[in-house]
């Protein structure tokens, strides 16, 4: 099967790979480039576990053709931390107990990050709306909403690793 070269920016670094026609971004990120932080939950765009940012906007990687991100900037949870320093959202999720099994967490963080980039001081309703496409079967929504609000309130600086 013919392979197509695709190059894009992944978490600020140049990435290049060959993809099958029709390959989705989720499989290319995970198996092609080894970034395992986006998760497969449904493969049909209903659960949000595979949410990544493409040019800053949240996208469902399982429904995104890999070839369509050519030349664009892709961000994943794997690139959120600045070295050992966690992102404010990550820190707030830790402190607020906003993860149980953790499988939805990368997608939640991506949706939250997109929200805070466009709306630095969101209302509770805006937070709920932003993560409405992300399912959490452990049903830990309340701590997640609280953590996102807490991150929005926190000073925009590196908070350091808590562990």
């Amino acid at each position, binding site marked *: 099967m013919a392979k197509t070269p695709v190059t894009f920016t992944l978490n600020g670094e140049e990435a290049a790979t060959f993809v099958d026609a029709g390959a989705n971004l989720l499989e290319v990120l995970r*198996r092609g480039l080894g970034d395992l932080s*986006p*998760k497969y939950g449904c493969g049909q765009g209903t659960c949000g576990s595979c949410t990544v940012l493409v040019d800053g906007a949240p996208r469902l990687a399982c429904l995104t053709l890999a070839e369509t991100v050519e030349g664009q900037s892709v961000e994943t949870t*794997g690139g959120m*931390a600045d070295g050992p320093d*966690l992102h404010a959202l990550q820190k707030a999720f830790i402190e607020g107990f906003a993860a149980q099994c*953790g*499988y939805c967490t990368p997608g939640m963080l991506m949706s939250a990050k997109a929200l805070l980039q466009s709306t630095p001081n969101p209302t509770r309703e805006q937070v709920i709306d932003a993560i409405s496409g992300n399912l959490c*079967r452990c049903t830990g929504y309340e701590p997640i909403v609280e953590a996102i609000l807490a991150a929005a309130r926190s000073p925009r600086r590196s908070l350091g690793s808590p562990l």
Partner: protein
Amino acid sequence: MNRVDYRKDLFADERDDSLAEIGQPTLRQDILGHVTGRSPYYDDHLFDGLLHIRCVRSPHHHARVRAVDCSAAEAMPEVLKVIRAADVPVNMNTLLSLIGFGKDDEPLLADGKVAYIGQPLVAIVARSLRAAQAAVEAVRVDYEVLPHVLDVEEALAPGAPIVNDVYPNNSFDYHERYDHQKLRFGDVEAALTQADHIVESTYQMSPIEQAPMETCGAIAAPETNDRIVCYTGTQALFFSLGVTAKQLDMPSSRLHFIGGTVGGGFGGKVDSHHEPLAVLGTLLTGRPVKYQWDRAEEMQVGAPRGGERWKVRDGVMADGRIIARALTGFFDAGAYTRLSSYAVQKSTGHLPGPYTIPNVASNVFCVYTNRTPSTAMRGFGITACDFAIECHMDKVAETVGMDPIELRILNAYRDGDMKAHRRSAKNCALIEACQVAAEKASWPLSPEASAASSLSGGGIGWRSEIPETSIDTAGQIGRRRQDGHGTDPYAGADTRGRVAAGHVDAEAKSALGNAPQDREMEADLERLGFKTGLDDRRADEIPVQAPPPPPPAIPRQSGSALFVARGNGPSLPSGFSPRSQPAPATVRPSAPPPSASGPDALARPPSPPQPSSGSSPLETKAQEEDAAPNALRRPTVSPFLRGRRR
């Protein structure tokens, strides 16, 4: 974080107050991995040359498989292996066989017939998911569709399709002999005749899919030391290891299982079906193999919480005391046992709920239907049972015109009370939980209810004793047959009639033709107490006691389908009146006078006739029958059940 109210004032002697962690936020040990996307779920292990498994699945609830043609799939260049039932060294298994409980009743890959929609028949190992799916669609299966049954009571009816050839009566055989789990405590039948009200209802709970965010799956790969490594999302790593070793007939020392990071489980990841198939794929191809459900499979094939149907009948005095509770439960196992047999034991162990009731009887069945097999899910076996019991408590409260919380406090276990399982209740807290709930909801309670305590009033007199419990035939605790062929006081004619006949007289044939009726089970019908064709027998064959005085005939509450008319069973006593007119505190002369002085004074119904002490002709008849060839009927009272404790 909000302060958590642990009511240490109530439980000061139960807990070490130095547990400083309680009520304090504590970092999860795995949370750093979760927020950085580095937690190692099973699918987060990369292998070069990974192969994928997709399964050919049954489109029918129930069908005989006449022929399977895999030739087109096998010819596909991307397909490395087509796995059939014959390729699995030990195809039949049941999960709890690892602890010696139950018979192997479920094939890893269906062989000869399919018993639920989505049951796997053939597993395709291919270079890509797409190629595996294409090969699945190229497999031709010739099905002969069979009648199916999806309802638990219909499954127990005569002539119902045989769902599972290992259990041709459509019910799990406890101890390879009993078709249900039975609980007997006191004499429900006598107590029901003395109750002011009979409150009866049926409750049905649906199956519920656990629906974890991470679908079930496993990846197997060859290691360099002749072992197979298996990364799995299982919640039950050692079940999976044991099942894989058993089904692949290989020593577990050759298996290197790695789990522990589960993307949500909730009980749905204990069935150990992915690991054997993935490891088998690796054994047959020598390559890494992943078997992962997609979301549609997770929802359709993934074993849910089993549906349960509960029939509850309470005998209640006008002041709210519950003096008898009889239950019949039907646990829908789906087509195969998995953990449902255990769930039935759990629910039986939970009865009659957290209430001190002097007369309790239950029959709970683990029933096979052509539904997706059910398995563990968060309190399975308890949740639906509690749903039924607590709905029923509200119904009882409504019937007697009593506050539902106060009704619970009145009947709640207190420390020292004897439970139906013949163990003393301890560390009881239902009363306190009710009081706190009422307080937080600003729900007014009477001074008596507010003053009640689990620490007082329990374990006194009859509350601490094991009551005389009737036993039925062959030493099995069970129902004392007052009139032999009357309607079943516990479950209604439905249950008994259906279970009675079972498949014994039916023309039902197994789909595979190799599951004859268990003759031994038939011979034991009488011994089973309920599984009996009593109605077909001559009346004089039936051991009986002197029948109780018939309850007075009174009109039933119109419009209520919940109070079932019975020819000679208990009916609503004369003291009954609708909720809008609270029942008068009078009872029939045969019942003890109600007491208003609290639970200490809860009256027991008078002792039923002693079955072993009488010498009526009927007793003699029964004793004579004891010596008959079948020698099954020995109505007596077990010394143990009279009150001795182990």
